[in-house]
């Protein structure tokens, strides 16, 4: 315990105290820094930062689980069917859409609806995660000022919550697919792998946006508009082949297309995606994760003061 402030006369009025503080200073320097938890800004490499940010999560793994469970529970709280809604909700929505498609389009409504859903469900996951996740740090302001919690906690909670919904709606879709007589292929076994890639890809975007939203609060409106328009710029309700050739290049530049393509191959076409079709989403995931963690690294110590 020590007092030492040369600039401030009040602390050096007492000579005994001053002497004591020098003693403490010297003892401090001996014991200094075996495991500093919060140090002054110092150069850390990107990888050591990312490693630390992720390993910090082990202290909050139980909190992560309970936040996700509570989020899901709250959604269907006080409803008679309770958690069954998380299966029923997407199922009912898909049944409605299937009936609408069969009225509107002159395609085989049954297979067409599954085609649409294989694109729509991953897109719903990505866009919902982004729209709730990008606000997650700002929304948790009161929390973060009162307890220490790693900054990536709330973005992660948002994406985890949505990914469970996503998994459940995929299950509902399987039921629907069986019902309309679509064959389930062996390629479904690779679906978890595709979901893991999509999860991390989305998490990278969410992390970057959640940190940026702290600095630019109106980013959220921009994000919402972009997400809405993307629904039409991604081949979800139409096949890529329906796009006029001169515009096709722009659609191929859209990163989301490659993720949706994975699900379509695995579920709808029952084909193993080519090496190329795997490599692009994995590469994009690395890019978004890098951007997300890089932005966090640059801003981590500043965020709390900006909330």
């Amino acid at each position, binding site marked *: 315990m020590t*007092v030492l402030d040369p600039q401030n006369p009040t*602390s050096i009025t007492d000579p005994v105290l001053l002497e004591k503080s020098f003693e403490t200073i010297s003892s401090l320097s001996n014991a200094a820094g075996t495991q500093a*938890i919060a140090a002054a800004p110092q150069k850390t490499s990107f990888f050591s930062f990312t490693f630390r940010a992720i390993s910090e999560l082990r202290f909050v793994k139980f*909190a992560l689980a309970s936040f996700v469970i*509570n989020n899901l529970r709250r959604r269907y709280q006080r409803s008679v069917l309770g958690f069954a809604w998380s299966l029923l909700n997407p199922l009912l929505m898909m049944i409605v859409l299937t009936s609408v498609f069969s009225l509107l389009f002159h395609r085989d409504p049954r297979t067409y609806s599954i085609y649409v859903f294989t694109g729509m469900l991953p897109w719903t996951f990505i866009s919902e995660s982004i729209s709730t996740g990008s606000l997650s740090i700002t929304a948790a302001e009161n929390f973060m000022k009162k307890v220490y919690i790693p900054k990536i906690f709330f973005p992660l909670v948002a994406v985890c919550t949505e990914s469970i919904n996503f998994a459940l709606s995929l299950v509902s879709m399987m039921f629907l697919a069986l019902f309309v007589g679509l064959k389930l292929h062996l390629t479904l076994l690779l679906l978890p792998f595709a979901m893991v890639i999509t999860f991390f890809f989305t998490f990278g975007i969410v992390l970057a946006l959640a940190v940026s939203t702290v600095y630019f609060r109106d980013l959220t409106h921009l994000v919402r508009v972009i997400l809405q328009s993307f629904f039409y710029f991604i081949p979800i309700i139409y096949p890529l082949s329906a796009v006029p050739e001169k515009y096709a290049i722009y659609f191929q530049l859209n990163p989301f297309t490659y993720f949706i393509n994975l699900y379509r191959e695995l579920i709808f076409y029952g084909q193993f995606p080519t090496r190329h079709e795997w490599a692009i989403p994995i590469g994009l995931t690395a890019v978004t994760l890098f951007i997300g963690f890089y932005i966090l690294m640059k801003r*981590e110590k500043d965020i*709390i003061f900006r909330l």
Partner: protein
Amino acid sequence: MSAEIDITNASLRFRIYRNPSPGLKETFVQQFTQKHKAQLVTEFDALKDVNLSLRGGDRLGVIGLNGAGKSTLLKMIVGIYPPYAGQIHVQGKITPMIELGTGFDHELSGRENIYLNGALLGRSYKQMKQLEAEIVAFSELDEMIDLPIKYYSSGMHGRLAFSIGAIIDPEILLMDEIFAAGDAHFVQKATHRLMELFSNSQIVILVSHDLEQVKALCNQAIVLHKGIIVNEGSPKEMVDYYLKEIVHLETPELPSLVQPMSSSLS
């Protein structure tokens, strides 16, 4: 493992933004109107060159006026606010009793909140399962424990929060002005439990405006003033110093208010 806290020359700087959440538009406009930029941020040092070294057995009282940086010091030790200069080294599990009830989900029942709050303190479901009965018994919420906590009175809310926070014997205990809510009976019980926590913890830092409490519970004290540790020593000396130098200094025109307080305490 013995708990220890070392803070070396730590300074914490707050930046107050006139517009705390600038939009994209403002940021864009600012690029062209550079002259306004400087006025938008005011900085002040909430803590300046703080040095502390605590070991097992230390019971530190922190006294100072409102806004002196007492709570901020605790929050810096927990890791909420990173210092812009200096080092903080903490060894041992910290139990912050800073803002009890943080993280309560008002839609969930008291029982569910026990698990949620425990999870925030890093406890697993299994660990909380073992403590659950004890927490429920201590809070005396009985069958109310299964109601959503939005139906709780503030007293019940406080009791639950206290019971969860106080159930685990910490290595490092940080306390900020919590002296339990509730009726006289619960306050007595809680005070008793706090004494237990005090004696079972290796290191305690107590922030309090109750100077008698600091004198009774702590074995050393610091006086914080405008973010600087202006004096340190035995609790009794520090309380006297605080009343004489700081309180008096800050309220020279109101001696009548200060006088009875200091006379009752000395």
